[in-house]
């Protein structure tokens, strides 16, 4: 009984069906938030319970999973979710964007362009873009259904009035296929242009708020702006200090307490790939991957088989 009530990739059969139905509906109505009966996941809210459920519902045994957290493959959130699916689904995992078929992401889109057949799953804390302006759910639903989106511009107006430019730097509201205004989850607005016309399927899961929404492949996604204050996908005006990339989104790292700082790619896979290819930035030098080093050791002292 117990083994039958569980399905591939952690979810039970009924939950999996329910989530897949929600995903299908979300794909059919781009940008529309589909309510679903979010289950409790063995991790706290805010750790990607929505993303995990969407990933689990999409996973097939032959899939290759990549999990990133703010672009990094090696932070706690990414590592624990990757381990979770290694244990519960036994799928292959990778850190390379090009090898992955499903990428679960927290707040970044990989630098490397996605390809057809890939699925990008976002973890969403608050799916409702109008929430901080209109607290009533009944009212925001009505605004979505009647396409009353003037309020979204009030937020951008406030930004300009207070800061002189649109200061919203993440979770920048977008309009999907000319209809629904959508919160692209807290990705930096630098990533917003990558949402549009992507060959990959993009799914958004909000576990606590119980919503799933989607941007199907090759969907037009436009960032909202004013005629005289156009959308600007800004980033720090530096090159990566490790790999020298000038076009990637950067994290600022404080290196000492006397003002020292460095800028590094937030996408660790992108940065590593570039360094392996011989690129170097201000502070970094081209380096071998740990795998290459391990392989070179293997040549000297072949594995004994004890570790297994």
């Amino acid at each position, binding site marked *: 009984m117990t083994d039958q009530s569980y399905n591939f990739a952690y979810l039970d059969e009924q939950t999996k069906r329910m989530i897949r139905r929600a995903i299908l509906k979300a794909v059919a109505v781009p940008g529309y938030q589909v309510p679903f009966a979010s289950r409790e996941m063995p991790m706290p809210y805010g750790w990607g319970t929505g993303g995990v459920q969407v990933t689990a519902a999409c996973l097939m045994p032959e899939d290759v999973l990549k999990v990133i957290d703010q672009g990094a493959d090696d932070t706690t959130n990414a590592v624990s979710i990757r381990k979770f699916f290694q244990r519960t689904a036994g799928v292959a995992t990778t850190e390379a964007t090009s090898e992955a078929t499903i990428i679960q992401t927290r707040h970044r889109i990989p630098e490397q362009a996605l390809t057809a057949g890939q699925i990008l799953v976002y973890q969403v804390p608050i799916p409702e873009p109008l929430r901080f302006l209109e607290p009533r759910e009944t009212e925001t639903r009505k605004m979505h259904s009647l396409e009353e989106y*003037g*309020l979204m*511009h009030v937020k951008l*107006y406030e930004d300009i009035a207070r800061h002189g430019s649109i200061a919203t730097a993440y979770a920048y509201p977008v309009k999907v296929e000319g209809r629904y205004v959508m919160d692209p989850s807290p990705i930096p607005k630098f990533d917003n242009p990558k949402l549009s016309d992507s060959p990959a399927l993009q799914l958004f899961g909000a576990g606590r708020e119980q919503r799933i929404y989607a941007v199907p492949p090759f969907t037009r996604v436009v960032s909202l702006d004013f005629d005289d204050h156009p959308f600007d996908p800004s980033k720090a005006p530096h090159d990566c200090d490790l790999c020298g990339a000038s076009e990637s989104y950067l994290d600022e790292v404080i290196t000492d307490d006397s003002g020292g700082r460095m800028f590094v790619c937030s996408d660790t896979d992108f940065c590593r790939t570039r360094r392996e290819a011989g690129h170097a930035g201000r502070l970094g030098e081209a380096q071998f991957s740990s795998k290459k080093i391990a392989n070179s050791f293997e040549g000297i002292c072949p594995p004994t088989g004890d570790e297994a």
Partner: protein
Amino acid sequence: MSRIEKITPAPLLSVRNLSKRYGSRIGCTDVSFDLWPGEVLGIVGESGSGKSTLLSCLAGHLAPDGGEVVFATVNGPQDTLRMSEPDRRRLARTDWAFVHQNPRDGLRMGVTAGGNVGERLMAVGTRNYGSIRDAATDWLGRVEIDANRIDDRPSAFSGGMQQRLQIARNLVTGPRLVFMDEPTGGLDVSVQARLLDLLRGLVREMGLSAIIVTHDLAVVRLLADRLMVMKSGHVVEQGLTDQVLDDPQHPYTQLLVSSVLQV
């Protein structure tokens, strides 16, 4: 004179047999009247007489049990109660305006004065920051709020300023009909006088039609062309303001007029 030229042969708002019950109790019942373009109608009555219920029914905030509210839209007269919801909401943010008694109900307290005034413009599709800003500055001037307060939030404003800001926010899209629920309630007398003066100026200048609900007879004397007196959900008397106030016919109106304090 210009006001008279604007008057068209059809009423702007035509209400027939409007009624609203709260269970067995009456909210308002059998209310019928015509409002003509450029006319200001006052609704007076004691608290609980159904005047706010009536106003909410007219403005579409409450669903009445029966009757019709025909508004002369740009596409001809239409019953707003049987209109589709998107149409009614569009009407509410273009041709109509609603001034709440408490400015906190009508303003977004977390949004700057400029944003508050600009919201209706953005709701009808203006997407140019500069022109929204100009319109907001212009309207703050028209309601006598200093232009350098444009980036302050309403919570930093006095009660009278908040109420004036609410009026600016409502009139910015050039509505044709304004609903006002006790616009001077909760303000002290000198601020009231200033607000009334301002309202009278704006109404005359823009050729607005307005329906003003109040319990303050001085307000209607100053603003309203015509007066409706309500008691227990019924309209007991209506007519020209001066006529009703100077020569009240119904016993209740007589009581109302005679209970005004004289100083």
